[in-house]
């Protein structure tokens, strides 16, 4: 939200709005297909795409200053570490089925 958008930008925002809705519909279809691991990968990828489109256009990340990109880059690094370090630890820790918990 950096400058006053004119009509073209309004049209662009509407196109983005419907694109994200179409992507929501797409992940619902993928969910219905029960594709297993492939389905999970596709749904996560599309969700990341939706979030990227929203951030890029609605939060105007494409026009933001380097300071914000730097803040976000550091955040993404920490976020990914938070996300994958524990999962990596679980994957590579030797376990027997009895050590797993049933939820």
């Amino acid at each position, binding site marked *: *939200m950096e400058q*006053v*958008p004119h009509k073209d930008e*309004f049209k662009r*925002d*509407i196109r983005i*709005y419907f694109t*994200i*809705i179409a992507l*929501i519909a797409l*992940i*619902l279809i993928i*969910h219905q297909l029960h594709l297993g691991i492939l389905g*999970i990968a596709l*749904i*996560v990828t*599309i*969700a990341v795409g*939706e*979030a990227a489109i*929203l*951030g890029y256009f*609605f*939060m105007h990340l494409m026009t933001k*200053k*380097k*300071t*914000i990109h730097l*803040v*976000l880059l*550091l*955040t*993404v690094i*920490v*976020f990914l570490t*938070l*996300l994958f*370090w*524990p*999962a990596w630890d*679980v*994957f590579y820790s030797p376990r027997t*089925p009895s050590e*797993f*918990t*049933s*939820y």
Partner: protein
Amino acid sequence: MSKIHDSDLVPYKVETREDTGLYNAKFGIWLFLASEIMLFGSLFSAYILLRVGSFSWPVQSEYLNVPIGALNSVILLSSSIFFIRAWVALKADDIVKYKKFMYLVIAFAVLFLCFKGVEYYQHFSHHEYPKTSVFLALYFLMTGLHALHIIGGILVNIYYAGPGMYLRAENKQWFINRVEVAGLYWHFVDLVWIFLFSTLYLL
């Protein structure tokens, strides 16, 4: 002697700083959003850790109401685009339009919470509580925290659409910047929901 207002002592509320290239509130909100990413990131991390570390995991979509979740995604996305329209109207000095769109943002946010309430009611009527399973504990924690963010956003939006309008008379550009910053927060809340919906309802 002219009276010095407190707000005059705050620098870079309208003009941009040379070092960051941003006015202070915008830099501040991005730092705040970064901390929010860490907060929700840690919860998503806990979700992954507990899921991959469990011997069995429930089929999530059997527990949750996917159509309501999808509808809520569209509702929140619509409120995001209304916020952009409100901000554009404010910059164009069209206050009637600004207020109209801000009320739409608030109405859609309340609608989102109503649907969330319906979902919670369905869970409770089936005796499904956070203590029932780890998945439901994560579901209630993450969506509950998100709902608190929505409530916070609603309060801020109500303030800027109503009682806070007097700030515009004080300094028009400063008020526009405040609304812009509130809008960035609102889009972020929408962005978090995209991940919550995909992760909790569909995976």
